[in-house]
């Protein structure tokens, strides 16, 4: 798959964080970018759009990113969910990886980090 064909879902309660990442992803030529502002919306948008990659914040209202990750993995065990959070503590890392996260990015997330994740996803090695 080429990177431009990827479908990407960004889940973050910070509109600023979503817009910033969305801009980075669009600049790579990816046109199908979806956004969710909390964990519940993330699960619903995942089921609706079946994205190839999900960037998931952890600290969010309603249900957390970890809970949303669990529900997405339950729905689709092959889902590629990358935790993109400000709290990359050992505890959060372990919890996310146990729940099936594909990778973990610590905020602030650089454009290079985002690009590397998407390139790996396109190659099928995420």
């Amino acid at each position, binding site marked *: 798959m080429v990177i431009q064909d990827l479908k990407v879902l960004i889940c973050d309660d910070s509109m600023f964080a979503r*817009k910033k990442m969305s801009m980075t992803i669009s600049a790579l030529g990816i046109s199908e970018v979806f956004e969710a502002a909390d964990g519940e919306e993330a699960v619903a948008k995942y089921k609706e759009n079946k994205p190839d990659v999900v960037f998931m914040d952890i600290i969010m209202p309603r249900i957390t990113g970890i809970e949303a990750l669990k529900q997405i993995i339950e729905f689709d065990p092959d889902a590629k969910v990358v935790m993109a959070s*400000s709290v990359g503590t050992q505890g959060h890392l372990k919890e996310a990886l146990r729940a099936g996260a594909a990778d973990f990015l610590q905020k602030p997330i650089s454009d290079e980090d985002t690009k590397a994740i998407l390139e790996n996803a396109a190659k099928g090695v995420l």
Partner: protein
Amino acid sequence: MFAQFFGGYLLNKKLVTSDDLTQAFEDKKHTRMRLGVLAINAGLMTADQVEHVNITQQSVDKRFGDLAVELGYVTEEQVDKLLSQQPTEYLLLGQTLVNNGVLTNAQFEQAINDYKSDNELTDSDLEGSKNESLSKLVTEFYHLEEAVNARMLTDYVTMMFKNIIRFIDGDFTPLEAMVVREFDAENLIEQRITGTYDAVTCITADKDVYFEFAKRFAGETFSDITGFENETVGEFLNVVNGLFAVNQSNEGGAELSMTPQKVITGSKITFEKPAYCIPVVFSFGEVDFIVSAE
């Protein structure tokens, strides 16, 4: 970070005004270090000796270093060593204040010596950005040694300042902290840290300043979006708190998490435990950072 705290120190000692510092931080970008200030800082020359060389230079067409050697104040080797040093930010600030006529060489000499001895800082402390030296400076400046949870507060405030420099700018002056139990806020973002220990953290400022702070973090790109400033300042606080949590997890084994940020406008916020309100003056206005360890 030493430059900003040196600025705060000069302000507390009433040697400079807030406006002097704002101007100096702006001018500092174009300042070139002079040998006189370097020699005073290194303790190789007194301010009087520097003045003497400066005055002599008016009648003799020679470089400062050559004259200082001729007059026997320093050796050629010492001049070479001083010239080969990379200027540090706090020295550039000092040089700018001298250039702007805010401080005389003698006032600079007194201030830099007092600053070093009051904070027990050595030259090598000031040349780097060692965590230990920065923590010492923060503890001393804010009298945090008296606080319950002194270590956590020191770590938090040090991390906060590092990230202000990283994400906003270095052109600020920290003012003395106030200990408060409540705060009237026009615009305030709050985020709680929970886990091994609990804390409340906030950022607050007047509307225009708040907006400018947000623009510094996010750039101009998103500034037209409704709620831009709350979103952006909230994300800044989230990133700082996240980096703090990771740092505490890696270094001290503390396991911390955070709650989603809360926007509070036009109302009073109260704290269960005394909160440290840390005012920071930027070129665009004052922003208050509040932290209360519970």
